[in-house]
């Protein structure tokens, strides 16, 4: 578990930890990068949208193993849960823009969905929970 405040300067620290965690779990280097990018973009969204750039708000990250059956085989994976206490996220706003336009912004959710097998927003009491899961191809598994 990693608990931090919503100051963007801690984003870098979280990336270093997630990248190494993915490495230790046996994800190939490109997937370490994309998982790290997904978590970074999700945290940035919490800072910007949930907390409107207030730097002193709490964020909690939980890491655990995940499993699923795929084609008769058990796949192991990494589940990351990001929790914040901002106002409830409006589901209708949770969409990236079309990628056909050339303009700044609206890319974060694309990066998150591209990297992870599961991307799931839920509200539980006063908490926004974003559940991210990435499964490991059988041959890389050291979990």
């Amino acid at each position, binding site marked *: 578990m990693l608990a931090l405040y919503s100051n*963007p300067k801690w984003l870098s620290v979280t*990336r270093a930890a997630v990248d190494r965690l993915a490495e230790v779990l046996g994800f190939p280097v490109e997937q370490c990068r994309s998982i790290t990018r997904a978590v970074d973009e999700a945290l940035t969204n919490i800072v*910007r949208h949930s907390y409107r750039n207030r730097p002193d708000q709490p964020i909690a990250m939980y890491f655990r193993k995940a499993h699923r059956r795929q084609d008769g085989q058990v796949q192991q994976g990494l589940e990351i849960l990001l929790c914040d206490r901002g106002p409830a996220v409006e589901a209708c706003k949770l969409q990236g823009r079309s990628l056909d336009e050339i*303009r*700044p912004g609206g890319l974060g959710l694309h990066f998150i969905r591209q990297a992870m097998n599961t991307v799931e927003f839920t509200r539980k009491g006063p908490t926004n929970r974003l559940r991210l899961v990435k499964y490991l191809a059988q041959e890389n598994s050291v979990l």
Partner: protein
Amino acid sequence: MQISARRHDKTTIFDLSGDIDFANSPVVRESVLREIRESRTPRVLLNLSQVRYMDSSGVASLVEGLKASRDLGSRFILVGLSTSTRDVLQLSRLIKVFEIYDNEEQAMAS
């Protein structure tokens, strides 16, 4: 993250290093836009070879730099993309929108 600008052969060259993320992309954006508007050189070149990470807000700053350059009739060129930086532009479907060279020499000769 560090950013600095130099002028060479009618080109404004920015050297960036470290991680460009939401903590510092506003600084990147401001520096690049100010310098582009002040220097008004026919070419603007961003050397990204020392950039370790770039997030979507970093990509957004590059898009703003590109637009400001176009408004002034300048070319906006990226050089020294790492695998990671290239990936992020590819995912954004922006890799073809930017003029990209392997290194400064090739860009300057172009």
